[in-house]
């Protein structure tokens, strides 16, 4: 459904864009219908840039992104099927308008002919799907709602369209632990409707909770990808191992094994640098066997 092929993104910096910095280097992957894929990386890994390119908010420097075989073209038709939600719920809503304006915008652009009563019903259904009480959220300003409620409103907004793919970029990182998991569960439920979710996060435990497949990014390249249980259960790339060992866990002491020596091929990321270590499990390391 969604296919990235050798996607590279360079940002021009300096006066008159004299220099350029590569944020994403030769990334290729695919998302199939009804699949939750998580994109894991630290700051500077290019994960958000990839999300924005898929959403057509930033152009691709080279390579291609196709959706159902057609190249991404930012526009009404594309956004009917692909939507995104971002990290900061408070900045996702225009503070001078009521929060439910995000729904009217959808109506104006996509369903101008739907009668008002029916539209209200659709909103109510959509809100119930994300476990929001219409009375509590409609007619309020963004600052009168909590972060968790706002993020759910955005999911409800996406559900009003017949979307096939939702790009969720760090959507829980500003939420409290007690509400974060509910938003994650909602994402997982979308799958049951046949939706695909691209879940972008820096938090390994969240990615692990949700996704069927995981991609680990480092400095703009994919270093490892495969089924989540394989990537987390049997990480092959030194970087993935290092990340996993650094995650604080409740019931186990911090892994005190000396930090993994960085593999000499660690910069060999990119589409052609990936080796299929086992079926469906790719790693950007040419000497898997010896480098741990």
């Amino acid at each position, binding site marked *: 459904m969604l296919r990235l092929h050798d996607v590279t993104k360079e940002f021009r910096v300096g006066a008159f864009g004299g220099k350029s910095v590569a944020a994403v280097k030769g990334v290729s992957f695919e998302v199939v219908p009804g699949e939750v894929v998580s994109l894991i990386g630290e700051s500077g890994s290019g994960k958000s840039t990839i999300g924005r390119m898929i959403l057509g908010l930033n152009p691709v420097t080279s390579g291609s992104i196709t959706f159902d075989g057609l190249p991404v073209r930012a526009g009404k038709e594309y956004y009917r099927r692909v939507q995104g939600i971002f990290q900061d719920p408070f900045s996702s809503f225009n503070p001078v308008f009521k929060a439910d304006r995000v729904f009217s915008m959808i109506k104006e652009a996509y369903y101008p002919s739907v009668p008002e009563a029916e539209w209200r019903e659709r909103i109510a259904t959509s809100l119930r799907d994300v476990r929001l009480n219409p009375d509590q959220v409609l007619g309020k300003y963004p600052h009168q709602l909590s972060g968790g409620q706002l993020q759910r409103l955005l999911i409800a907004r996406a559900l009003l369209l017949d979307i096939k793919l939702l790009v969720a970029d760090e959507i829980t990182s500003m939420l409290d632990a007690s509400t*974060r998991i509910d938003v994650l*569960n909602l994402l997982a439920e979308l799958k049951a409707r046949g939706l695909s979710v691209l879940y972008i996060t820096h938090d390994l*435990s969240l990615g*692990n*909770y949700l996704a069927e497949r995981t991609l680990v990014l480092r400095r703009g390249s994919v270093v490892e990808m495969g089924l989540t249980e394989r990537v987390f259960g049997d990480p092959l790339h030194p970087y993935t191992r290092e990340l996993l060992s*650094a*995650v604080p*866990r409740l019931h186990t*002491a*911090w892994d005190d094994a000396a930090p993994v020596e960085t593999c000499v091929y660690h910069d060999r990321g990119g589409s052609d640098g990936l080796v299929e270590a086992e079926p469906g499990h790719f790693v950007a390391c040419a000497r898997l066997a010896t480098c741990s």
Partner: protein
Amino acid sequence: MSLQVSELKVHYRTLKGDVRALDGMSFGLGDGEILGLVGESGCGKSTLGKSLIRMDGRMRRVGGTVVLDGRELPIDDDRAMNEFRFREVSLIPQYAMSALNPTRKIRRMVTELLRSRGAALDLAELERRMAQVGLPAEVLDRYPIELSGGMKQRMVMVISTLLDPSLLIADEVTSALDVSTQKAVARALLGFRESGYVKSMIFVTHDLALTHHIADTIMVMYAGRLAEKAPADVIVKAPRHPYTKLLLDALPEVGVRYADRRLEGIAGSPPSLLNPPAGCRFRDRCPIAGEECAEDPPVAELAPDHHVACWKA
């Protein structure tokens, strides 16, 4: 006991009235103890950290005392607190990036800071401590912009503990960092205690799992009050307060998958602290709340060092 906080009440003044950010907090902190302070946003954990070192203009102490090493801290007297800051109580702010003046080299900044506190710079000691957290001495001749987030954070840690304060408050120091840097910063904090640079520490965070790795004792706050305080392992393995239990249940861990075990969050949201309802403040969200919860639950010591504020615990 190096720190003893009794019945501390701190309110925020707003146009709509007083927000009771801290509503009668009492706890102690022993010598060499690291206390992890966790809770949701708005529970008062940052207010507590701030109250112990510098109250901002809108904050007002309504009652209670703070005693550090036998001396009462004049927490609402900004001038008088100056004598204690850096020497007795020190703070590592959440955004170390903005705590450093961008136009000064680190060396000059440290020298000026120490001079303003009437202390001379012991360069050898500074470099030794920097080495301990993995910062090369060259860092001193760089500008803050040339350092990465983790390096800045560690630099600020070294600076703020240079005068060996008795109490160090680390306010969300790791939240803006990547996992791998976060681990290094957390380790460095532990190292400070071992080397005796700080006697005790309050580690404010929203990350329960991370606290567990650093803290000896964990204190869970809810809506301006203490919910539960116990040794770190006890909080994680045998929590008594329903809020702590639910919070732990909502925590995804590496290895827990949606497909295998569906975690649940805590329904509802914390009460407004502008006019908090009477009785237990967790009552509305609590699955086991009963009649008696209409009255304020006292903080009881259910087991040695295990304090819980719940009728049902």
